[in-house]
């Protein structure tokens, strides 16, 4: 282990080395703090050949590290109980077998603790609508974006059904966004919650990085009653029921499964990827209703 810069560990995001130079925060879902607790901040780095350990430095000003922790050969670490909305600066040095520290730090990691989501307003909207929402919580960075598709049962087969048109952090605790719900968006309820998450630093949700999930039913996609008029004839009866019947039991199917030729998103009224009795129940609930651009009415 030499003292040269080339031996300095390079902090990185797990599995995403392209983002090394970015904030480098790695928030691990399993380490999510409880609401009353301060936040957590996780990071990982590339192993350095010959290193027997690492020292992780942290501080609240760029390049000024006021704390450190010495580790063994592990290449990841999580800070816990950090105050919310405080930006942290973190870097790592390697330690060789003789206990000597590398001369240089790794690249500096900058970021907030893991974001959390506590609420969203409004709390629901019909399929096919576009609206502005306000998300509240903590540790939203300037590039934070909402994500509505975690634990979405149709995301794997149909894809995301709530698109984020634009978003912007108002503060560390508030995020505004414009979203559009797909016409076939999955209609969720309290028993099948749709998780509202905030992803810091524009990272992808699939990384598991920077994500704050809320376990509760924070946002509901409501049934667009117009969809009951499947044949767009102006009234919910006869052919609408037949179209349901002819697609009954079909599912969208998750690739690489072949598509089900009987599946029709138009008949999958609750957007869960399968045409079943739930869709019939929605149809029956609007039976004989007349429909216009505003919805189907008794």
């Amino acid at each position, binding site marked *: 282990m030499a003292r040269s810069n080339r031996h300095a560990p390079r902090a990185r995001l797990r599995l995403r080395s392209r983002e090394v130079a970015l904030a480098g925060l790695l928030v691990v879902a399993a380490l999510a703090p409880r609401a009353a607790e301060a936040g957590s901040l996780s990071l990982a780095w590339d192993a350095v050949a010959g290193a027997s350990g690492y020292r992780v430095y942290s501080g609240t000003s760029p390049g000024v590290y006021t704390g450190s922790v010495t580790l063994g050969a592990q290449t990841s670490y999580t800070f816990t109980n950090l105050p919310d909305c405080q930006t942290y600066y973190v870097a790592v040095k390697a330690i060789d077998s003789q206990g000597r520290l590398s001369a240089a730090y790794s690249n500096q990691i900058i970021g907030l603790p893991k974001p959390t989501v506590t609420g969203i307003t409004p709390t629901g909207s019909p399929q096919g609508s576009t609206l502005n929402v306000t998300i509240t919580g903590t540790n939203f960075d300037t590039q934070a974006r909402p994500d509505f598709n975690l634990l979405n049962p149709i995301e794997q087969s149909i894809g995301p059904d709530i698109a984020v048109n634009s978003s912007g952090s108002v503060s560390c605790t508030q995020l505004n966004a414009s979203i559009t719900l797909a016409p076939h968006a999955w209609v969720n309820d309290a028993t099948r919650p749709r998780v509202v998450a905030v992803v810091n630093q524009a990272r992808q949700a699939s990384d598991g990085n920077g994500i704050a999930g809320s376990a509760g039913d924070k946002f509901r996609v409501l049934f667009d009653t117009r969809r009951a008029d499947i044949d767009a004839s102006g009234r919910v009866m006869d052919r609408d029921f037949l179209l349901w019947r002819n697609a009954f039991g079909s599912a969208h199917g998750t690739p690489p499964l072949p598509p089900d030729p009987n599946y029709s998103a138009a008949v999958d009224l609750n957007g869960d990827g399968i045409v079943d009795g739930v869709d019939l129940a929605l149809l*029956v609930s609007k*039976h004989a209703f007349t429909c216009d651009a505003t919805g189907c009415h008794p």
Partner: protein
Amino acid sequence: MNGRTPGTTRGTPATRVALVLPAVLLSLWSMACGGGGGGGDDHNGGVAPVADFAPSCDTGAGCFASSVTLQKRGVAGGLVLVDAVLNKLGTPIGVASFVIHFDPSAVDYQSYATGTALGGSPGTVYTVTESAPGELVVTILPPAGGMSTSTAKPMITLTFAVLKIAVTGVTFENTDILNGSALYDPAGTLMPLGAGAWSGGLISGS
């Protein structure tokens, strides 16, 4: 997936999707035995009117061929049971839907019982909605592939209560058109029965 079985769903309060024949029969038996009979308007000096039904097209008449007609199934006191009889034979029906009009000041819709012409229950979805006073919308959805019948049979039995001494027409509305009273093949193609093939009748209270 929700495993809810077709035919057992519930709709709006005005929509009924269930088997109700036992309750109707029990009610009729009770009234025939002197029980029940309460409720409803009484415009006959304290005596409840007695119901009856006269079809516009008798089963033996020429109009009965290739038709959907209302026929009397039975009466009990102020209640009358009316069958919607399908006489379109040997033809798979994908869905049958019809709109019935009546004078709500004279007649009150009570309930329905499933018929046998389109498969009965389970498997066939029956949805009956009193969409407005005096308007009944019925949708009968047989199993996939549709159902056909080789003899004239009731698709559904409707029970009405007469509210006063009067004679009032019960008619099919908007026949042979989409969102009206029509039969469809399993592919969703409308199967027009022709002029006069949808015929109702007269409910009387005396």
